[in-house]
Each structure stands twice: as C-alpha cells, then as structure tokens.
C-alpha cells in the first residue's frame, strides 16, 4: 500500500484506529486530469484474507462518504457531534470493516471529493461512470497488490442499483478478456436499488396500499382505471387517480414512511429549481424523488403549482387559476 495514502489520525477520534485506513486519489484520465477519491478501511479481522468490498452510494451525484459517515463506516458520527464542534468519535460496533476491507469511492468525477480539471467531464452518464470506476479498480489494485487475491465484491444502494451491475459487467468483461490485474470478483449486493423503469415505476401504488397509506377504495379505483400499470397513464381517469395517490403520500418522508421529514433551518439550503422547473434535489434517484418521477411520467411535467413555491415564490390565486 502507498504509505503516502496512510491516514495516521482522524480528527475527533483519540484512540488507536482499529485497522489501517488509507485515502487519496486515483487518476483515471491523465489527459483530462480526472481524479477519483477513495477512502479505504482495512478489515479489523483478517485483512489479508477477508473480502474487499467496493461501496457506492447513489444519486446520481451523491458521495459514497455518506456510507462512511451515516451507514457502515468505522465511527458513529451522529452520537459524537453537535453543530459547531468536533466531539469524541466512538467506534461503530456494526462497521462493515469488522468483516471486510472496504473502499468508499466517490464517483463519477464531480461527486464528493472527486474532480476533473476539465469541466466537460462533469457531463457524464452510466456507461462512462462504469468505465471510469473500472479503470479506478485496476489502478487501485495495482497500488494495493496485496489485496488482489482476496475475494472481491461490489456493493451499493439506490442509484447504485445502476452503478453496481454496470460496473460488475465491466469487471467481468475485463476478466474474460484477460485484462490485468485480474480481479477476483465474486459477486455483488444492491440495496433499495434502481433497476428498471417499469418495475420501479409500478412499485409505488401497491406499496402505498400495502402500507395503508391509501385506502382500499382508492387502490381499487386506481387499479381499475390504470389496469395495474402506473408509469404511463392510459387515460385521464388513470392520471387523476394517480394524482389522488400522490396527494395521500406527498407529505411523508420518502426515504422512510414512518420517520419525520427533517427540514434544514439553513435558508441557503432551500431547494433550488432547475431550468426545467423540476426540483433538482435527487439524492438517490435519477431524476427526482419517486412521486415526482411518477408525476413526470404521468403528465410530462412535474407538479406545476408546487415548483414555484419551492423556489420561494408563492403564486397568487389568479395566477393559480391561470395555470
């Protein structure tokens, strides 16, 4: 391992690190200066034998350090920090580094700490992201050859439901073509992953009914009007019934229906509205949060009245009537 990448101390943590940590950049395109940031946590068990796992958060556009801080990293941040001060970080008893060597990768360039010197690189997509991440892996294993023989897995959640299989496919193609170094790829994990427009799009209504978020009557009505397919409304009745479904669920926390929705007190963090008029906050999905995505497909545009409100503009009643 490159000693220059060794993390010798973590601000906020005063003990001895339970395993070695490394962090830094891998250049995936020299001519553009495209650099991907990684944070690597060696296993607290048997690093020489335990699997190596690449972790990817979704978005697209979200940093995998989300996973490090909030999900399965070696420290418990939430209990250790209050606004404005670094407190004592505690170890996370459920850190995934207990049983694996884990790489948190910020991908594509432009996300988290990853960057490019050529801003045209910030226009990208699934396939380029997979290709760059594959390049990253080949170079990373060249830097850390002692892990090459360990079983290797790729894991992620949400929009990484796209990143994981596309990257896994690149890895397998590389293995089949004899690309070196040869990765000891064994499999992959996907949590709440984006997969397919049809399956993902049709999932919401049965979910909302099963969870008791919409009534039996409304479920029967929407099912009858839409014929069980909710992505592309087949008629106006279907569209209006889907709108009713949306009204029933729109104030819930989309990421956990039983949790309250956190609202930032920082006014600078209020949502911006993109050129298209759609809110552009999309932590874990391709376009926007799911109900909006459903609306977008339903009507070809999203939530016409609410977008300006989110932009800080409250329309007058005549304006509403005009719309």
């Amino acid at each position, binding site marked *: 391992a490159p000693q220059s990448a060794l993390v010798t101390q973590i601000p906020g943590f005063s003990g001895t690190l339970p395993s070695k940590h490394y962090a830094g950049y891998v250049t995936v395109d020299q001519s553009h200066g495209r650099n991907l940031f990684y944070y690597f946590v060696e296993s607290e068990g048997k690093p020489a034998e335990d699997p190596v796992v690449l972790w990817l958060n979704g978005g697209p556009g979200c940093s995998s350090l*989300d996973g490090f801080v909030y999900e399965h990293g070696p420290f418990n941040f939430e209990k250790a920090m209050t606004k404005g001060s670094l407190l004592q970080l505690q170890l996370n008893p459920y850190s*995934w580094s207990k049983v694996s060597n884990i790489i948190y990768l910020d991908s594509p360039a432009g996300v988290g700490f990853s960057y490019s010197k050529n801003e045209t690189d910030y226009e990208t997509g699934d396939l380029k992201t997979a290709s760059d991440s594959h390049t990253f892996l080949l170079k990373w294993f060249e830097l850390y050859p002692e892990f090459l023989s360990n079983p290797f897995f790729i894991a992620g959640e949400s929009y990484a439901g796209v990143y994981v*299989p596309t990257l896994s496919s690149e890895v397998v193609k590389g293995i089949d073509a004899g690309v070196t170094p040869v990765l000891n790829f064994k499999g992959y994990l996907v949590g709440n992953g984006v997969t397919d*427009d049809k399956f993902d799009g049709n999932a919401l209504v049965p979910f909302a009914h099963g969870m008791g978020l919409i009534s039996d009557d409304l479920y029967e009505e929407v099912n009858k009007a839409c014929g069980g397919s909710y992505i592309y409304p087949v008629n106006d009745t279907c569209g209006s019934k889907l709108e009713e479904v949306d009204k029933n669920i729109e104030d819930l926390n*989309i990421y956990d229906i*039983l949790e309250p929705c956190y609202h930032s007190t920082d006014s600078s963090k209020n949502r911006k509205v993109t050129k298209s008029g759609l809110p552009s906050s999309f932590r874990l999905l391709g376009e926007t949060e799911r109900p909006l995505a459903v609306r977008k497909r339903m009507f070809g545009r999203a939530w016409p009245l609410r977008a300006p409100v989110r932009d800080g503009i409250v329309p007058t009643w005549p304006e509403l009537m005009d719309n």
Partner: protein
Amino acid sequence: ESVPCINDEVATEWLNNESVRKAIHAETDFSWELCTSRIEFYHDSGSMIKYHMNLTAKGYRALIYSGDHDMCVPFTGSEAWTRSLGYKIVDEWRPWTSNGQVAGYTQGYENNLTFLTVKGSGHTVPEYKPREAFDLFSRFLAGKP
C-alpha cells in the same frame, strides 16, 4: 442543495473541516456536498435486468435487499423484478433473523440470487438498521444462508 428530509449537517461539517481534509488527503479548494448538482448525468444504460441476468447466469453471487419502509425504491419493485428473472426458487419465502428476532424475509433463487427484505428499515438500510445490515452483509460475504 439539500436532499429532501435528510439531515446531512454532521457529514457536511466534518468533511469540510480543514484538519479532516488534511488527515484524509482530500483536496481543499472545493467544498464537500452530500449530493452535488455540479454534474449533468445521463441514464444511458437502460434497464438493469439484462445485467443481472448475465451476471447471475455466469455464476456471480447477488444479494438484492430492500428496507421495507422505503417509498423511494419500494421493496415491491425489487421483489417483482427478481421474481421476473424466472429462476427456480431454492429457498422458499421465509423470515430471517438477527439477534434472535425476525429481521425481515428472504427468498433464494438458483444461480446464487437472493432477495431479502429488512423489516422497518428505510432507504439506507445500514443507517436505519445497523445490526441487521451487518448480519446480512457478513453472512452474504461468508456464503452463509
């Protein structure tokens, strides 16, 4: 930008702290954001079903898990597409346990494909259910049921 309903203050503050940046060898001339709008991103790979078919057919192991209280990518969709692959069921729908409690349900398919739910969890399973997530992760890596 803020992500709806998500409090990212701890991560934002820690990862934008100068001493942290220095310690983890991160560039210091731009700020860290949980999710960025700096990139223009195209979903240009279509459905993932064909990728899953190819990978599992080649013998690579796959675990598809779902926090069952997530409305962003609901488990109903993941359950449906994994079933749609048409693989033979080798482990019938059953509860799985963590710490002696039912932690969710699972169904195993041929070609080493497993679908699994995590009861009461939101979108980011290890955040909502760390112990259960650790159990499913470590058992999968170890090739245990």
